[in-house]
């Protein structure tokens, strides 16, 4: 073999060895470690961007917004891009974000995390308006650092460029706004943040695995929508009270996502977009509440609060035929835009959460029951013992002294002794049965959280005087809502209705009705005839001889009942009272039922007729006008013109304009 051949062989050997090595490296990278590098490459480029749904609105029955969500920003920062310029950045941002400069400097300072890496994500402020975010962007873009950047090296110039462009960035968020502030706050409720730390449930890889394409509802999502198990604690906004809580799932909607790829500048590569699922925005909840009527109620309640100085004052307006709640208010209330600023007791909806002895308004139960069972008629006479009735070791008193009065007059004068005797005539078992049928001792099922069922003791636990006391409204505890629905039963010809607060659910455009709720009759409690007789008796209450003359209206027949209940603490009756009046109108074909209740009125007396009656009348006068109800008492008309030469057309009820007299 000559030298040339040897050289050739050596060269060939070297080439083969070199190429072989390269080939093996290629095999190693492409075949053996393929999965590892594929995952790493996907991790660098693939992103799943979660799209948060817009929370649904809460609307009144006429479509006026009571609660809505507006888009805002979460202002975040990447401390690693700020270097040592935290004071300059903090000084620029503090006035816009309305934050303390020192706190900002602290947040912008990089920290070492538990895994040894520097944090690249810190939240500066949530719920920043779009205008404020635009101001932040403007400030960051024009930020100066006192150096001539044109003379800097490329690396240093890039530092300042990235600081301005990317150090402070934003994420999408939404802010819940309640335009009417305190109006109907107990009904609407409020939202707030809750946090969860269920990292174990989270996927262990950065993107959903192929074949699943699914983001579970409880997925923990970190920065840029990357699902990871590194996040320790996540806060999410949810309803915490009222309708916001009861209909939280419907209002929240469902998340969407976009599965795509990004380049090194974090720009999306549209052609590599894999999936694009729109978020399903929350449904709008349309209430039965009428915001105009609600405003009338709250204005008059505020006036009642000013005049009588009670601890609290509450009112409901209900349509008896359907159970729809047109207005529900309790003062003092709170602003759902900042519920934390009000005392805790203001957050409570007293109409459904507070129970107390109902007092004289409860007399409608034993009297209705006795009429229904034909134990008594409206003309049946009872001896009211001249105001003092001794029964089973206890003396019952009337505030007025009566002798023989009819059942109708027992209601008119609100005689405790008369009601007790009606109850005794009815019997314990029958009385208990009707108390339960009227809905006492159980929840009404209203669409609000925190409702209590009240207290009605079974007959076997009654004392010797319970049969006489309970018809007067002592010995049972009921919420204002339960008393209201009992009165509505009488107004609705004896049928108890479920209180209705939500009319329907519609989509965000308001064009498609998703769910429609119908009025729900619960049961027939008393016959139509008994209800009619009861209405007859209740019509005598707001008269000169009755206990609620102040509730009388000129153009509408009102039927109602006053209540003045002594407050009870540890079995001892105090010299403090609940004053109430519940009435419906027009009496023979009721359109609305209004209940007013004052807790401990301290000026101007404490009788229901004296303090609650005027508030009822003030609300009713404005409500009938607002709702355009037809009067059942015809108003007196002005005398029409008798001038035979008059050419003016006359319309009954419309005052005629008189022409100017010529001299």
């Amino acid at each position, binding site marked *: 073999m000559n030298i040339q051949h040897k050289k050739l062989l050596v060269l060939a050997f070297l080439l083969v060895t070199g190429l072989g090595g390269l080939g093996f490296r290629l095999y190693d990278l492409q075949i053996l470690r393929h999965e590892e590098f594929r995952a790493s490459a996907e991790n660098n480029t693939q992103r799943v961007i979660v799209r948060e749904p817009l929370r649904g609105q809460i609307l009144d029955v006429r479509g006026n917004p009571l609660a809505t969500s507006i888009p805002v920003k979460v202002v975040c920062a990447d401390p690693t891009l700020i270097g040592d310029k935290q004071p300059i950045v903090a000084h620029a941002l503090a006035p816009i974000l309305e934050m303390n400069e020192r706190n900002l400097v602290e947040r912008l300072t990089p920290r070492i995390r538990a895994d040894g890496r520097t944090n690249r994500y810190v939240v500066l402020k949530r719920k920043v308006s779009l205008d404020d975010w635009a101001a932040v962007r403007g400030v960051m873009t024009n930020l100066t650092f006192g150096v001539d950047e044109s003379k800097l090296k490329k690396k240093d110039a890039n530092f300042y460029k990235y600081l301005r462009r990317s150090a402070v960035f934003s994420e999408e968020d939404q802010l819940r*706004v309640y335009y009417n502030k305190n109006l109907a706050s107990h009904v609407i409720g409020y939202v707030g943040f809750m946090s969860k730390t269920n990292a174990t449930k989270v996927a262990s890889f950065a993107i959903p695995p192929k074949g699943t394409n699914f983001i579970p509802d409880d997925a923990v999502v970190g920065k840029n929508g990357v699902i990871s198990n590194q996040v320790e604690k996540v806060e999410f906004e949810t309803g915490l009270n009222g309708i916001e809580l009861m209909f939280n799932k419907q209002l929240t909607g469902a998340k969407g996502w976009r599965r795509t790829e990004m380049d090194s500048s974090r720009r999306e590569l549209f052609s590599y977009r894999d999936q694009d699922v729109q978020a399903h925005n929350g449904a709008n909840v349309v209430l039965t509440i009428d915001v105009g009527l609600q405003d009338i109620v709250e204005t008059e309640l505020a006036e009642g609060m000013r005049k009588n100085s009670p601890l609290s004052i509450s009112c409901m307006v209900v349509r008896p035929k359907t159970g729809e709640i047109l207005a529900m208010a309790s003062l003092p209330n709170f602003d759902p835009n900042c519920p934390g600023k009000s005392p805790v007791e203001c957050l409570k909806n007293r109409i459904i959460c507070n129970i107390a002895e109902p007092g004289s308004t409860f007399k409608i139960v034993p009297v209705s029951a006795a009429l229904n069972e034909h134990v008594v008629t409206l003309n049946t006479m009872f001896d009211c013992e001249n105001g003092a009735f001794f029964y089973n070791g206890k003396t019952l008193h009337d505030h007025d002294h009566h002798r023989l009065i009819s059942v109708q007059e027992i209601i008119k004068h609100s005689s405790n002794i008369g009601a007790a005797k009606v109850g005794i005539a009815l019997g314990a078992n029958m009385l208990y049965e009707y108390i339960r049928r009227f809905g006492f001792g159980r929840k009404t099922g209203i669409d609000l959280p925190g409702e209590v069922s009240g207290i009605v003791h079974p007959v076997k636990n009654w004392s010797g005087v319970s049969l006489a006391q309970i018809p007067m409204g002592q010995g049972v505890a009921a919420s204002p809502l339960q008393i209201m629905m009992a009165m509505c039963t009488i107004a609705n010809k004896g049928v108890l209705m479920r209180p209705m607060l939500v009319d329907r659910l519609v989509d965000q455009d308001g064009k498609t009705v998703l769910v429609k709720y119908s009025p729900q009759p619960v049961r027939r409690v008393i016959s139509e005839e008994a209800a009619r007789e009861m209405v007859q008796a209740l019509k005598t209450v707001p008269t000169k001889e009755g206990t609620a003359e102040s509730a009388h209206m000129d153009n509408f027949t009102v039927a109602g009942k006053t209540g003045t209940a002594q407050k009870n603490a540890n079995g001892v009756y105090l010299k403090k009272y609940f004053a109430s009046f519940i009435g419906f109108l027009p009496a023979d074909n009721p359109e609305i039922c209004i209940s007013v209740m004052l807790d401990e009125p301290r000026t101007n007396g404490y009788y229901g007729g004296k303090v609650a009656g005027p508030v009822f009348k003030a609300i009713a006068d404005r409500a009938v006008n607002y709702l355009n109800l037809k009067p059942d008492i015809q108003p007196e008309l002005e005398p029409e013109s008798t001038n035979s030469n008059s050419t003016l057309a006359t319309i009954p009820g419309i005052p005629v304009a008189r022409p100017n007299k010529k001299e």
Partner: protein
Amino acid sequence: MARNRRNSDSDAARLTPALLALLICACFVSAGVGYVWYKNQTALLSREITKLEDQLKNLQTENKLRRDSLAEKSLPVNLIKLVEEKNLGLGPPALSQIVRINEAPVTHSSVSNREHSNAVPRLRKANDR
């Protein structure tokens, strides 16, 4: 070289292989350039699309904000405040200002077939065929 070849080769015949090679190279080059141009166009278009999507999103956001603002201004409580501020002297009507017109109930015999067919067409229901 053979005499025949030296004498019979023309310029064209000598340049043909070179031209062929040039043509093939040009094909490859233009394919490469075309591919790069196509990818560039795709990238530009995708940026344009994402930019327009962002614009659409911003417009939708602005639309929602304006709609909410209008709804807020139309709230009855705000309208009443406006009436009071501007002293317009408006208020709810008095009972004597309300005229109620009672319509006579419509009976089937009072409406002839011709009148019915000339009336507003019946709205089509979902299960109509």
